[in-house]
């Protein structure tokens, strides 16, 4: 029998009983009406009996819960306004949290596909002098680490190399990892089909072989096994595919450009990039370009590896400054120097979404409190009809569970949408992240949402235990005069809401102010009208010897169609500068480590409108046949030759070969980093492009009109000048400058959204609280007005309370707001120090808004008709 049939059955049975009883009473001489009520009296509490019978059925608990849920659903559907006000903020907060949890999980925790990652470690060079990690290790460093056989089970070195790939038609840029044969034993990754690379593949004469990523296998080979044995042209070398990496495995690093699609034996790099053939990197300690990873033997601790690495470093010939540092696998998901800022911004986002959750929690608590007050009479009635308090509490919990459930359901699309939007902010992290829907993150957020609902519900729950039957039934409570003056829980919640809003509001204001500041701070160059693209001569199979000629031709062609053109090694601003050790003639044999440099063509400074403050610009005549020269910026001049004229001085630069250059000019400082401080500009040395022609150049063009509309023409000009050169990163310089702000923008948009929600809900809270108070004290107000008080005065008295709440909340929020802005400043580049004015203004704005809201709510007093109110009550 189903539950419904069973209920009907019981109803029918009890009705029969009452009928029979009434019949007997009628036979005893009572009138039909009297007989009926006598039967009911004799029976006792019908509802309670039914409850007892249901309990006898044994499954009442489940049944009750089911009923509770159904009832709750009906109730919430009936009060749509309430439901929306409770569910929407909570859904938003849950979505927010799910999105940040997905990001945090992808960045910090999600497995990268290595076996037993607890036994993995990475070895990095560390500069004592700079107290900073250096980005890479030399091949010899890797060999040294590999020789620690008692600690290390396997070791590998690899580098990510951007390559030009031809599979069937057309060339594409893809990333590859050039790895030593130990890569597979070290990571524990084994191909899904085919074989891993072996020591055989590392022999100089070995035929080139490669493994491909699972996604490339799926997209290009349809996941067919016939992919093995086919040929891929990588940087002009024919590689035979011998294996496919497992699904989802995309390298051990998150932040080294795009995920690799190919894995190739390290020595093959000599065939692909002829410069490496001459370099002899295997024997030269100063050529550090590899990342070294190791698999520790079981039971070996990271500390033991570190100790061994210290010994290795101590035995390094000549380089006292450099030590080795061992990093555990969870640390080495990033380049070591970059982990901390990434983690900080992740926690910042988590803090923002926790803030959203807190706001939603207080909003819900407030709404529920208001409703439990409104339902006091209903509760009393149900108690009087025999409902147990525990039973009512359960009913109440069910309501909140349904609320939270709805919020979770609605939070899901919010979460997916926001995660999708966050993908657009990928540059903010500088990582290639796997932001697919993350069940762990979703479950966590749903749990947090439920916990929030339970927490919010706990405040009003105990009001049930306080309901005074007699008083509530008579309706005494709403009119009670003495009680209303007390500070009640709702006021506290409203004040806390205002405080939360204050925190989010000041944070949003601070970020807005900082973003505006970055817009007004001079860049040191003028990006207006400039179009930039990156061109790769190697992909175009241009021999190194022809590069200069091609570059000159390209410049000449572009200059006929534009107001100016120039080439550089890299476009500004960028976080990834090339750097080299340098030694000015003032420094008596002491190298300065890693000073940034760039190669620029003639016309570069003019195009970007960077003034030459001393000496001369780079000239077209500065080429490989003329004497080596350099132009420095003011910061480099200050660093190398403080207080002296650098023009005419000499500067040694240690690139692949060491050159001794004459400084011929000084240019003004500019913002080289995306959020660089122009007051403390980086020292940068500029080399004439034709003296040191790079393989990849950033092609700059100062267009006559809108640079965006010039893009197709730009492509045509480059295409007809240089055959087959792929252009990438085509964008206006203004877009490039703007992209540097993406981290600040991401956080500021998130905080602005949460701030807006917080302020809105806080004001709604004040509105509801005031309106409730007016309703509660209607009789008192009516009496006051009836005996002559001016309604305006009464309104003012009520509004004052709202203003007081606003002020109190703002004051309480001041301290966490100060803390939050300090956190923001320490976590994000480019955030200003907040001034007292900012806090003061935020407080005043909030308090004013609170006051206005309270006033609006209190206005309804004017509509109170004393006569009508007093007659009814």
């Amino acid at each position, binding site marked *: 029998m189903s539950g419904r049939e069973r209920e009907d059955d*019981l109803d029918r049975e009890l009705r029969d009983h009452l009928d029979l009883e009434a019949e007997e009473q009628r036979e005893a001489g009572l009138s039909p009406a009297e007989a009926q009520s006598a039967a009911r009296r004799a029976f006792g509490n019908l509802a309670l009996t039914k409850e007892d019978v249901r309990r*006898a059925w044994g499954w009442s608990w489940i049944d009750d819960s089911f009923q509770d849920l159904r009832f709750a659903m009906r109730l919430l559907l009936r009060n749509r306004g309430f439901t929306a006000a409770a569910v929407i903020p909570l859904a938003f907060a849950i979505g927010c949290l799910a999105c940040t949890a997905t990001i945090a999980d992808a960045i910090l925790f999600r497995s990268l596909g290595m076996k037993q990652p607890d036994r993995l470690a990475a070895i990095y060079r560390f500069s004592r002098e700079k107290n900073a990690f250096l980005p890479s290790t030399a091949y010899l460093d890797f060999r040294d680490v590999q020789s620690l056989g008692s600690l290390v089970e396997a070791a590998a070195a690899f580098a990510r190399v951007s390559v030009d790939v031809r599979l069937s038609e057309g060339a594409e840029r893809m990333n590859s990892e050039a790895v030593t044969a130990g890569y597979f034993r070290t990571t524990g990754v084994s191909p899904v089909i085919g074989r891993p690379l072996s020591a055989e593949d590392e022999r100089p004469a070995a035929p080139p072989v490669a493994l491909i990523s699972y996604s490339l296998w799926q997209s290009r080979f349809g996941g067919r096994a016939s992919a093995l044995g086919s040929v891929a042209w990588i940087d002009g070398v024919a590689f035979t595919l011998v294996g496919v990496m497992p699904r989802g495995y995309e390298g051990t690093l998150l932040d080294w450009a795009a995920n690799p699609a190919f894995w190739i034996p390290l020595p093959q790099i000599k065939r692909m990039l002829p410069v490496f053939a001459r370099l002899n990197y295997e024997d030269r300690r100063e050529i550090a370009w590899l990342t070294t990873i190791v698999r520790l033997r079981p039971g070996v601790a990271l500390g033991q590896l570190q100790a061994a690495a210290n010994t290795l470093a101590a035995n390094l010939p000549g380089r006292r400054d450099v030590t080795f540092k061992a990093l555990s696998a969870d640390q080495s998901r990033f380049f070591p120097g970059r982990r901390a800022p990434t983690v900080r911004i992740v926690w910042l986002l988590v803090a923002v979404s926790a803030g959203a959750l807190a706001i939603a929690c207080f909003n819900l608590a407030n709404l529920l409190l208001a409703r439990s007050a409104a339902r006091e009479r209903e509760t009393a009635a149900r108690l009087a009809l025999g409902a147990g308090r525990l039973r009512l509490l359960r009913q109440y919990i069910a309501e909140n569970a349904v609320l939270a459930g709805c919020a979770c359901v609605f939070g899901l699309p919010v979460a997916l949408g926001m995660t999708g939007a966050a993908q657009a902010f990928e540059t903010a992290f500088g990582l290639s992240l796997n932001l697919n829907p993350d069940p762990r993150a979703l479950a966590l957020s749903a749990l947090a949402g439920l916990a929030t609902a339970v927490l919010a519900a706990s405040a009003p729950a105990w009001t049930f235990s306080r309901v005074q039957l007699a008083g509530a039934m008579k309706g005494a409570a709403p009119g009670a005069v003495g009680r209303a003056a007390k500070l009640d829980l709702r006021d506290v919640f409203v004040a806390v809401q205002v405080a939360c809003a204050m925190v989010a509001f000041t944070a949003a204001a601070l970020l807005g102010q900082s973003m505006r500041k970055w817009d007004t701070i001079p860049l040191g160059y003028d990006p207006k009208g400039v179009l930039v693209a990156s061109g790769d001569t190697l992909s175009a199979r241009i021999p190194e010897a022809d590069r200069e000629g091609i570059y000159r031709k390209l410049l000449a062609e572009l200059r006929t169609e534009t107001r100016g053109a120039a080439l550089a090694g890299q476009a500004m601003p960028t976080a990834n500068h090339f750097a080299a050790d340098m030694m000015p003639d003032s420094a008596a044999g002491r190298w300065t480590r890693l000073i940034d440099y760039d190669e620029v063509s003639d016309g570069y400074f003019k195009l970007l409108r960077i003034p030459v403050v001393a000496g001369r610009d780079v000239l077209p005549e500065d080429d490989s046949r003329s004497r080596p020269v350099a132009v420095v910026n003011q910061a480099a001049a200050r660093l190398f030759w403080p207080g002296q004229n650098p023009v005419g001085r000499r500067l040694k630069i240690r690139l692949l070969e060491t050159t001794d250059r004459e400084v011929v000019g000084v240019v003004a400082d500019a913002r080289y980093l995306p959020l660089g401080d122009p007051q403390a500009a980086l020292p940068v040395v500029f080399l004439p492009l034709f003296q040191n022609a790079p393989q990849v150049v950033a092609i700059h063009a100062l267009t006559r009109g809108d640079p965006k509309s010039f893009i197709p023409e730009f492509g045509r000009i480059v295409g007809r000048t240089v055959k087959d050169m792929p252009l990438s990163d085509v964008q206006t310089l203004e877009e490039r400058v703007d992209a540097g702000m993406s981290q600040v923008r991401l956080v500021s948009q998130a905080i602005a959204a949460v701030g807006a929600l917080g302020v809105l809900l806080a004001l709604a809270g004040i509105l509801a609280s005031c309106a409730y108070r007016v309703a509660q004290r209607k009789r008192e107000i009516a009496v006051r007005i009836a005996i002559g008080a001016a309604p305006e005065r009464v309104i003012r008295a009520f509004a004052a309370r709202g203003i007081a709440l606003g002020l109190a909340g703002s004051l309480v929020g001041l301290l966490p707001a100060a803390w939050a802005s300090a956190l923001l400043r320490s976590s994000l580049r480019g955030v200003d120090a907040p001034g007292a004015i900012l806090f003061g203004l935020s407080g005043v704005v909030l308090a004013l808004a609170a006051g206005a809201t309270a006033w609006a709510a209190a206005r309804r007093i004017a509509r109170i008709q004393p006569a009508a109110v007093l007659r009814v009550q």
Partner: protein
Amino acid sequence: MSARSEDRIGLLQGTLDMLILRTLRPGPAHGHQIGKHIRQTTQEVLRVEHGSLYPALHRLQEQGLITSRWETDKARNREFKFYRLTPAGRKRLLAEESDWKRLVQAIASVMWPAPEEQS
């Protein structure tokens, strides 16, 4: 009414089940009949609260001691829910009866000791 209600005795915990089972021994009956029967046969000394009769009936049914069926009462030409004993119910009634007899005898032997011991 009030004079009579003083004569009424509250039911001992657990005895209601036994009384219901005993009432059903001669044959099936519906709820109202069971209540009425207990009231009448005890000359209204034991008056079962209707509210507690039905939970007890459903509890006994859950325990498998009685079954129920909607059957037409010929006299009234109307369907009622009739309860009847199951074999398990009969067994339980026997056990409870003998327990009860032992209890009553024990109490009686304290309250009214045998005459030979009295002397």
